[in-house]
């Protein structure tokens, strides 16, 4: 109960802080979402992409 009040007081009360939090959150969300979806995609298609089978063909 007081957690919500504390959150309100620190983040939601002043609009300038609210908007700044929204932008920072959007930035973090963009990065995090990108990483998350890429990881999921790679795991879902494991063994099918070039980067997975490259070691069999490329002579370093």
């Amino acid at each position, binding site marked *: 109960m007081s957690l*919500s*009040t504390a*959150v*309100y007081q620190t*983040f*939601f009360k002043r609009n300038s802080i*609210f*908007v700044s*939090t*929204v*932008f920072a*959150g*959007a*930035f973090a*969300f*963009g990065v995090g*979402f990108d990483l998350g979806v890429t990881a999921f995609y790679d795991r879902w298609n494991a063994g099918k992409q070039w980067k997975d089978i490259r070691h069999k063909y490329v002579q370093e």
Partner: protein
Amino acid sequence: MAISQAVKKAVTLAPTVRTLPSGVPVAPLLNLAARPAHHDDHGHGGAGPRVDTPPRWSSGVSRTSSGLVSKTFTTISPSLYQPHRLLHTSVAVKEAPEVPDFSHYRANNNESHRALSYFMVGGLGVLSASVAKSSVSEFLQTMAASADVLALAKVEVDLTSIPEGKNVIIKWRGKPVFIRHRTPDEIQEARTIDWKTLRDPQPDEARVKKPEWLVMLGVCTHLGCVPIGEAGDFGGWFCPCHGSHYDISGRIRKGPAPLNLDVPQYEFNEVDGKLVVG
């Protein structure tokens, strides 16, 4: 006790119009001196007693043996006929009559669920800001240089690493470029030839900016193979595909190729000892 003056007071009046600050009701046209009219010739029973005056017997001055006495029965209602002048209020006028009443759904206090509401709004803000940023950045990325434009970029070569008499092949615009650090003998050889008799007449001076540095495209002018350096009958290059021979200046001497090896645009960066092709 002998009071000859009738006192006008507002006492136990039924609720009515507004009152003055002193408590007296405002009745601007009220005539307290009025008495009920006696109309005997009214067919329908007459107007009846005036209802706003107190009855005679309730108050007034009377003469007694001990003088004038004023008596007021304060509990008497000011009229006999009691119209039901009830206190009432009209229905509360809504500010926006078309809007339904939401009082049932309102929160008990201002702070409950406030953080949740703001969080929902902020969450939508985060998502939409992220969408906007993605759209703008993706659209701007399409305006960046495409792969073919990037391939047109200049290439820098460090000339100090190329000793005399050596060929170096670099890649530029997807094509090989031959760079040879010519020895004085080779330069001499290139210049003593009578170039006017060649298939593609071109003096060596016109093909190089500095005589010791020969820079040309390593693409055979016949059908585009890459000639091999330090090969061929003329001390220059030899194209293995169809047997074109190029001399030490890159000019065609023998074979099917029609033109000399092309010389690209290049500059010397004297300060750094570098050659910039393109």
